[in-house]
Each structure stands twice: as structure tokens, then as C-alpha cells.
């Protein structure tokens, strides 16, 4: 049967050429756009995870209430034993502790008087103990001057603030802030390097300090504001992570407002909404694609029906049932849809693959943005995208034919010969 239908299709160019071109063009476009969007979203997740949210984050319940204000005074104090337990229990994550704080950076003159000051946002992470955080924040790549801190008291400063305060590498400055219990906090620090973060909030006045220095400065021995977990596989599955966070919170979260609370990436910074919007957009794109292509193919089917008017008449006249003709048309469209979609997948792959390797430089568009995303966006090709593009290709073809084919049922057998005589 299939052989018969395929021969029928390919022996009549007008039957297959236009539908196949339409379907393959639509499917290839869909592969390209979906892979680009998926790449963009994955980049955003990766950047947010590295900079801000981790794939999971553990904070105290009190901290979580005011999390947008980063209230380190409500963070963990001396929680190293708990952290060791979590590390053992969740080996799929790399764990990193962080503290974010506000402070004043004060440069003195030769007499010790304040010469210039800048308000800074401190970002404390483990710089000396390992290179996880150096990799997460791509510090080596974003260094503008100097080197990474190697000893206590050495800090990195945003390049913009460094220039604005007219500093020199090696300058010793005073950092002035508040300890976790509100006392005044003072620390002498040395600027050892500058960084262009590529992230407006930090470029405006960010400093990077070793975690141990920050603990001493803020009087938080063994403490931290946030404990971030990074999946070693780097592959984030929101449903799986949600299950994990629920289990963690059931086990460790108590009535105590300083008990730990695990947040998934999608619980933070409105990323859950972004992920939902992305899924919704994918679905809507598929539906719109099916609808538009369906209408185009419906029209094409109608034109084909007019052209094959005589053929259907003869087939009815020799006793073929209307529903059999209709089924054969559907089967034809299934073949055309499949072939068109396969060609579309191949073309989509050809268009998208180079971008998945070399990427598209979006840095020009991110200069004034406060969103966290990478400068180079790459398409992400996956089986899921091929399936998501392939199915609408077939569905559109079937829909178009199903609508156009209903014309067969309007043919009156009694009028066939009259029609054929004309």
C-alpha cells in the first residue's frame, strides 16, 4: 500500500513538491529557533546559577524572608558541621559558601585622612581554598588588571570603581561596614587586581574578597549567608531538583527561623516564571506552527483536489468508497509530512550546528543590561528539539489534508458522469 502511495506521490511532482517545501522550511525554522531559545535559556540558567542562585541554594528561613536584601546578619553562624553532613548526603553537588555585603571603601591620604570613598558591594567567596568559585565567576577570564588574591587581605575590585577612585594596584584601603550583630566593622585590604564582571550591578562597585576575610570582617566565624550547590553534571532538571529540595526541607527545616531552607534555581530571581514562560512559548510556537502550516497545506490540498477532481470522480465511479479515498489522502499526507519533516530536520541541523559550535556574539546587546547572560549565545541541539519540530511538521500536513479532503464527501455519485462529461 505504502509503495503504491509513494509511487503515486513521486510520479506526480505537483503532489509533493509544494507541501514538502513548505513543511521542510517550517520544520527547519522551528529547529533553528527552538535550539537558539534553548541555548539562550540554558546560558541564562548557567550564568544565574554561577553568579547568583546555584542549582540549589541553602539559606536560613529568616534570610529567605528578606533574600532580595541579602541580610547576612540573618545567615548561618558556625554551620560547618551541618555543611559537612549535606556534602556527604548530596554528593552530586559541589558546594560553595558565599556572603554578600555592603561597605564603604575608603582611601586615605598620607596623614590618614579620607581622600576618596566609594560605596561597594562585597562578594565573599572561597578564593584561596580552591578554584570552584574562580571558575564559577570566570574570574581568570574577566580579570582586567593584576592577579587573583593569594593571601588574606587581598581583594579584587571592579575596574570601573578602581578607575573612578584613581587607585593603584597594591593600594591599601580601609573597608568600613557592619558586623553581623551591627557593630562597626573595619578591615584593611589591599587591591591586588581588577575585574570587569560584565554584570552591571557588580561593575558599578563590586569587590571580591576571600570568604575567610569576610568572616573576620563581618564577625561571622564559620558562617555564611548562602550555601550554593552546583550540579556536577551541569544539567538542570527542575522537576528532579524540586523533589530534592522538598525532601531536604522536610528533613532539615524546622520551626526555628534559623534552620536551613533549600531553594531550587527556579525558586529564585523569578527564574521559575522564566522557565514556565519558556515552556509555554515552546508549546505556543508548536501550535502556531501547526495552525499556519495547516492552513497553507489546507489551501494546497484544496488546489490539489481541484486538479485531481477527475481522478477522485473516476475512483468513486469504479466503486471506491469515499472514506477509503479520504484515508488514502491522509496516508499520502503522512508520507509527505514525514519526508518534509525529515528534510526540515536535516536543514535545521545544518543551519543550527555551526552556531552550536561558534555561537553568536551578543555582547553589543548586553552592555546596558542588568540581566545575567553570557556574551556568546550558542544554539543547543537535542533529541527533544528534533521531536518537538518533527511532530508539528507531520501534524500540519495531516491537518491540511484532513480539512481539504472533506470535499470528497460532498461529491454526489449521481452527478459523476455528468461531471466527467464536462
Amino acid at each position, binding site marked *: 500500500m505504502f509503495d503504491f502511495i509513494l509511487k503515486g506521490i513521486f510520479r506526480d511532482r505537483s503532489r509533493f513538491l509544494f507541501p514538502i517545501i513548505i513543511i521542510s522550511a517550517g520544520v527547519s525554522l522551528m529547529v533553528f529557533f527552538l535550539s537558539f531559545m534553548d541555548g539562550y535559556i540554558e546560558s541564562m540558567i548557567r550564568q544565574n546559577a554561577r553568579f547568583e542562585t546555584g542549582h540549589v541554594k541553602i539559606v536560613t528561613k529568616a534570610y529567605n524572608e528578606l533574600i532580595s536584601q541579602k541580610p547576612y546578619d540573618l545567615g548561618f553562624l558556625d554551620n560547618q558541621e551541618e555543611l559537612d553532613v549535606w556534602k556527604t548526603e548530596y554528593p552530586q553537588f559541589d558546594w560553595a559558601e558565599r556572603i554578600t555585603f555592603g561597605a564603604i571603601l*575608603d582611601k586615605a591620604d598620607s596623614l*590618614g585622612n*579620607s581622600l576618596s*570613598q566609594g560605596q561597594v558591594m562585597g562578594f565573599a567567596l572561597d578564593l584561596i581554598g580552591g578554584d570552584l568559585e574562580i571558575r564559577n565567576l570566570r574570574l581568570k577570564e574577566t580579570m582586567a588588571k593584576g592577579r587573583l588574591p593569594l593571601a588574606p587581605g587581598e581583594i579584587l575590585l571592579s575596574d570601573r570603581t578602581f578607575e573612578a577612585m584613581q587607585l593603584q594596584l597594591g593600594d591599601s584601603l580601609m573597608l568600613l561596614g557592619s558586623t553581623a*550583630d*551591627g*557593630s*562597626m566593622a*573595619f578591615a584593611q585590604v589591599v587591591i591586588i587586581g581588577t575585574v570587569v564582571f560584565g554584570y552591571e550591578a557588580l561593575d558599578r562597585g563590586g569587590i571580591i574578597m576571600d570568604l575567610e576575610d569576610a568572616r573576620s570582617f563581618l564577625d561571622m566565624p564559620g558562617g555564611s549567608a548562602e550555601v550554593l550547590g552546583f550540579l556536577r553534571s551541569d544539567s538542570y532538571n527542575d522537576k528532579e531538583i524540586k523533589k530534592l529540595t522538598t525532601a531536604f526541607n522536610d528533613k532539615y527545616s524546622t520551626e526555628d527561623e534559623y534552620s536551613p531552607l533549600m531553594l531550587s534555581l527556579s525558586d529564585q530571581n523569578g527564574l521559575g516564571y522564566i522557565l514556565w514562560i519558556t515552556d509555554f512559548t515552546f508549546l505556543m510556537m508548536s501550535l502556531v506552527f501547526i495552525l499556519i502550516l495547516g492552513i497553507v497545506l489546507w489551501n494546497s490540498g484544496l488546489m490539489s483536489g481541484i486538479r485531481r477532481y477527475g481522478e477522485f470522480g473516476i475512483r468513486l465511479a469504479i466503486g471506491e468508497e469515499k472514506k477509503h479515498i479520504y484515508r488514502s489522502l491522509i496516508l499520502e499526507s503522512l508520507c509527505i509530512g514525514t519526508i518534509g519533516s525529515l528534510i526540515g530536520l536535516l536543514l535545521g541541523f545544518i543551519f543550527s550546528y555551526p552556531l552550536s559550535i561558534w555561537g553568536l556574539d551578543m555582547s553589543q546587546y548586553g552592555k546596558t543590561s542588568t540581566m545575567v547572560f553570557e556574551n556568546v549565545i550558542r544554539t543547543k541541539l537535542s533529541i527533544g528539539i528534533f521531536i518537538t519540530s518533527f511532530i508539528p511538521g507531520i501534524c500540519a500536513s495531516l491537518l491540511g489534508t484532513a480539512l481539504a479532503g472533506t470535499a470528497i464527501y460532498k461529491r454526489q455519485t449521481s452527478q459523476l458522469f455528468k461531471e466527467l462529461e464536462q
Partner: protein
Amino acid sequence: MKKLLILILAAFALAVQAQNPTPQQILRAIDQNLTSTTVKSTSRMVINSRRSTRTVASINYSRGNTDFYTEYTSPPRDKGTKMLKQGNSLWIYDPNTQRTVQISGNMLRQSVMGSDLSYEDFMEESSLLEQYTAALEGDLTYEGRDCWKLLLTAKSNRISYPSKRIYVDKARNVPLYEEWFARSGRLLKTIKASNVTRIGSRWYPRRVVFKDELKQGRGTEYIVDSIEFDVPIPASIFSRTQLGN
């Protein structure tokens, strides 16, 4: 007869008005009661934050409304930290790093020692009468005391709190309760004074509770352990060289 009645009523109204001081007179009386040429005091600040309660003790000196010097004596981490205000400038000295840092700009809005008071609150210079115009909103009984209820409106845009509502003890010229508002009308701070004691010719609140209404926590108690008015204070106390000594 009718004229006589009107005359009696008018005389009565004048008498009542004579008894009731004007809002400006009330402000002047408060200023006279609470400010002096110099003040030396020891105090404790009990800071009730969300997580803990801690007490910071200090010795304080002031001269007029412009100069103010504080040296923290406990807890150990804060001991030796000094704060000097001269006119519009504020400096902090850290004994560990032996550095003096000037506090300015946005930093003035930060909390002092984690309390419900900001540096800006310390910076208010002038007397109430110089800073605000007052309107009498009536009288009421607050904590068993007869009080005037006044609404103060700042005379200048540079004043940190554009309006305040205060309840002033009629007999002792001490504000017992205050509400400080933002320009939007949002309540920013409340202040409750108690333990009002007689010190010489003045009435002075020995315990004041400051509450930052934008912060969680139970407020900051400011307790005056000892206070002396109009005592001689060496000028060197208010000089920057004093900070490093």
C-alpha cells in the same frame, strides 16, 4: 445683657488663650529644657535586633547642637571606637586599624552600631524651633501625663524627617512620644521617652526607646546612666586629634 454676656465670653476665651501656649512657645520650652551649652553623659544602648540583644556603653560629650563626641567603652569588640561630629562632618576612629574614616553621603543613612538610629539622626544640628514649624492638634493623656499633641513640619528640604508628630508633657516640656515621617507620609521611626527625672532645673528622660519602623526587631533602648549639664569640657575633646589618642 446680651452685650455683657458677649464681653464675658470674650474675656473667658482670652483667658483660656493666655493659658494655652502657642505651638512655637511649646517648641521653645522643649529646646530650653533639653539643650544646654555642654553636656557630659554616660549611656548604654540596648540594641534588640531580630537575632540577639546586645548592649553598647559609651561616654558622650556635646557642645551646643553642633559638636558631639562619643567613645565606646564596651563590648570588647567596640571598645575604643570613637565618633566625632563637628558641624556637618562625622568621623569614626577604629582603634584596631588606627584609622579615622569620614562618614558621608549614603553612609549617613546607615545604622549606628546596628541600632535603630542612623548617623543622620546624630547629625541633626539645630533646635526644634529652628528646624520645624508646629501646629497644635489638641491635647491628650499619654502614659498618665497631660500632653500637647503637635504636628511639626520641616522648614527646609534638608531636614531628614519632613514631619513629626510629638506628644509633649505639658508640665515638664519633655516629648514623651514621637512619630517621624518620610516625605511620602510613611512612618519611619517612633520614639518613646520614659523615666523622666529632674536634673537641676530640667526634666530629662533617662530612658528612650527608638524603633525603626522599617526594620524588624524590638527597637533600641537608650539609657542615660549619668548626665551633667553645663559642665566645663576641654575644647580638645572636640578636635580630630582626640580621635587617635
